[in-house]
């Protein structure tokens, strides 16, 4: 109890000094409007793009989810409900999708969504002129036909049982010349302003076709320092911060609810297969044997978290294979043996590049260093800024290993697995395995859902057997939210749905 008093006393002191310091310039902005504003902490700036089709970072997509919608949209149960479309039918051969557009869906600029806008958006994402379509699955579209003002037909080359999931792709107005800087969508919130390195502000869209958002304004504010989240929350800088570390969640006072879910990502030591000695299978397997995921969970999140053995998170039960968790059960002797076989009896040293803004990944890396020490391997941590991680690791592939979590952009196995195809442009692992490529291609080509699932599972098995990465866990997600707000929902994807939140009286 004493600690909480100390917390209150301290935050009160901070508030008082801040009020004195800033009193002159800020006026009383907080007063009456605060009731319908929520400030949400973002771990990184929205750097990549405001164009929903070009955004790559999970952190960007989870914010843009509030601004954009596709023909269908995901629900928190993992289903798909019609959004911009009011209804759809799929032809029996699985090749033709017919969508009836909903009446009077408005874009944020006031114009009505037309069949041309839908065709424009789908065509834009299927366009291959700039090297590969923006949405990989759209390579399968043979044509998009406008039947009449309210009906659209999508023809596929091959049947694809996962196709509905990718139709969550945002529909944007054909008339918007600057989607990169002026995002216009149909979502429950509309873009208001963005201040680089500071915040991203959205306001309620009052002409939204469905249930309108409850809270008038959402300020996504970039967290300047992950180590001060507790003080920022207590001091009122943030009302809600998703994905805070367990230790910080424990520090918060009674005025916050801590909701617990899973992040639905695969945290792993991702390996650059082009960097020696990681081209040797035994080396990668040795690292996999050396890692004890439960020790990591214990250290990083007080034991919370779910083990993963391949590139699939447990919530995606259709594809998750539990047996793979034990494929490399913690075994130091076995790891040393494999290292000697590979020609490194005395170990070697390598670098783990970690984005410094993700506390859980930094902590995980520190535990990994200790675990690798046990098999004589020296790992050095290099902290880099998130922006540098995007360019150095993700784009230039100039790294040895990195600890991050990879998420599914749509609720499909493909979203998790197609990046390991040797020719995929998102393959920052430089993973190249002909057997994997064949299985993935088979999975993509299968019209039958059973066969498709079978091939995807084969892919997962191959990733584990070849120790493509050192798989660790799906991180627990602790969302700290002020008790003033209710209605937070976890999605089986990396999404923050702000429209469902409401103010508790």
């Amino acid at each position, binding site marked *: 109890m004493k600690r909480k008093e100390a917390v209150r006393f301290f935050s009160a002191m901070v508030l008082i000094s801040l009020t004195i310091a800033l009193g002159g310039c800020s006026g009383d902005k907080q007063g009456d409007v605060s009731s319908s504003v929520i400030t949400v902490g973002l771990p990184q700036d929205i750097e990549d793009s405001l164009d929903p089709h070009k955004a790559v970072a999970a952190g960007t997509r989870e914010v843009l989810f509030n601004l954009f919608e596709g023909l269908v949209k995901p629900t928190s149960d993992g289903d798909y409900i019609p959004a911009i479309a009011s209804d759809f039918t799929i032809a029996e051969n699985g090749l033709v999708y017919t969508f009836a557009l909903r009446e009077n869906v408005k874009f944020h600029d006031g114009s009505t969504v037309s069949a041309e806008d839908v065709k424009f958006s789908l065509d834009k994402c299927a366009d291959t002129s700039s090297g590969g379509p923006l949405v990989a699955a759209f390579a399968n579209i043979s044509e998009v036909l406008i039947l009449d003002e309210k009906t659209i037909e999508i023809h596929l080359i091959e049947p694809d049982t996962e196709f509905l999931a990718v139709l969550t792709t945002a529909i944007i107005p054909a008339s918007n010349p600057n989607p990169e800087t002026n995002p216009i969508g149909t979502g429950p919130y509309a873009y208001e302003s963005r201040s680089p390195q500071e915040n991203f502000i959205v306001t309620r869209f009052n002409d939204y076709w469905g249930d309108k958002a409850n809270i008038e304004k959402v300020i996504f504010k970039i967290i300047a320092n992950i*180590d*001060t989240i507790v003080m920022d929350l207590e001091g009122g800088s943030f009302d809600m911060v998703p994905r805070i570390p367990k*230790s910080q969640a424990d520090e918060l006072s009674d005025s916050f609810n801590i909701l617990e879910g899973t992040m639905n990502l695969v945290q792993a030591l991702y390996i650059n297969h082009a960097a020696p000695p990681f081209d040797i299978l035994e080396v990668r397997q040795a690292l996999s044997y050396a890692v004890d995921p439960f020790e990591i969970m214990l*250290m990083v999140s007080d034991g919370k978290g779910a083990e993963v053995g391949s590139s699939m998170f447990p919530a995606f039960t259709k594809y998750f294979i539990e047996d793979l968790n034990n494929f490399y059960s913690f075994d130091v002797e076995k790891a040393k043996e494999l290292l000697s076989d590979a020609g490194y009896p005395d170990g070697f040293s390598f670098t783990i590049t970690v984005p410094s803004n993700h506390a859980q990944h930094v902590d995980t890396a520190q535990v990994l260093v200790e675990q690798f020490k046990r098999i004589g391997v020296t790992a050095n941590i290099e902290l880099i800024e998130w922006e540098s991680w995007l360019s150095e690791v993700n784009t230039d592939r100039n790294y040895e290993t990195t600890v991050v979590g990879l998420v599914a952009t749509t609720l499909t196995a493909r979203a998790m697995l197609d990046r390991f195809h040797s020719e995929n442009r998102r393959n920052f692992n430089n993973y190249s395995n002909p057997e994997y490529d064949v299985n993935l291609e088979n999975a993509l080509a299968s019209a039958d859902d059973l066969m498709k699932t079978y091939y995807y599972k084969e892919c997962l098995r191959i990733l584990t057997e070849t120790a493509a990465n050192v798989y660790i866990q799906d991180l627990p997600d602790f969302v700290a939210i002020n008790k003033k707000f209710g209605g937070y929902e976890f999605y089986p994807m990396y999404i923050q749905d702000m429209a469902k939140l409401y103010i508790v009286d």
Partner: protein
Amino acid sequence: MGNAKNYNLIIGGAITGIMLLFMLTGFFYTPHDPNIMNAELKFAGISFNHPFGNDNFGRDLLSRVMVGSFNTLYVAVLTVLCGTFFGVLIGALTGYYGGIIDEILMRINDTIFAFPSILLALVFVSILGSGRNNVIIALGIAFIPGFARIVRSEFLKHKKMDYIVSAHLAGIGDLRIIFRHILPNAAPVLLPAVMIGFNNAVLAEAGMSFLGIGVQPPDPSLGRMLSEAQSYMFRSPVMVLAPGIVLILIILGFSLLSDGLNKRP
């Protein structure tokens, strides 16, 4: 002042001596491995085995503070050495010879001086990349101008004095005059500046590590430990107190020492 005891020098020397011993011990011996993690000892309080308690990974804080302060000391000493060496060299030559080279070098000096040293170091680190050695280079460069100015002004003062003029007349070479005649006379001014510079270097290192550049995890440094402790301030205050108190003692010791040196008759 002649007869009064120089308490600053005595106390400062004592604190500094003890802290130096503490840091150097950390280089050779620590009670526990500073990086070894132990889940059972997460946030453990003060105990006989772990006099300073344990951190969020169950690592022994006493060992980490020892190694951490050594890392901090290492950066600070090399930074000050680098700053002093080049500062003295530039200050002595420009002050003694003057002329156009003096003008150019001192204007560059002024430009560097105009930047806050942390900001300057940040720029260097973003070019060179992070890591302990790069931080030393970056901070070292940032420290040169201060020393150069002090030494230059001393040289300007001394070179017009009679003893130097007569040394010239006696045909003694420039280098000998610079380093044997003037430099020792500049020492009383330079030494306290070095001490204060040392303080600033310790703080700058702590600041750089606090910002996540400099010493990389899991290796400890005082700044890194403080930065990591922020999240656990209330759950485990000892995580902040241990590196904090050591940092305060180091700075206090050197400050008193430099005061004492100033007051020396």
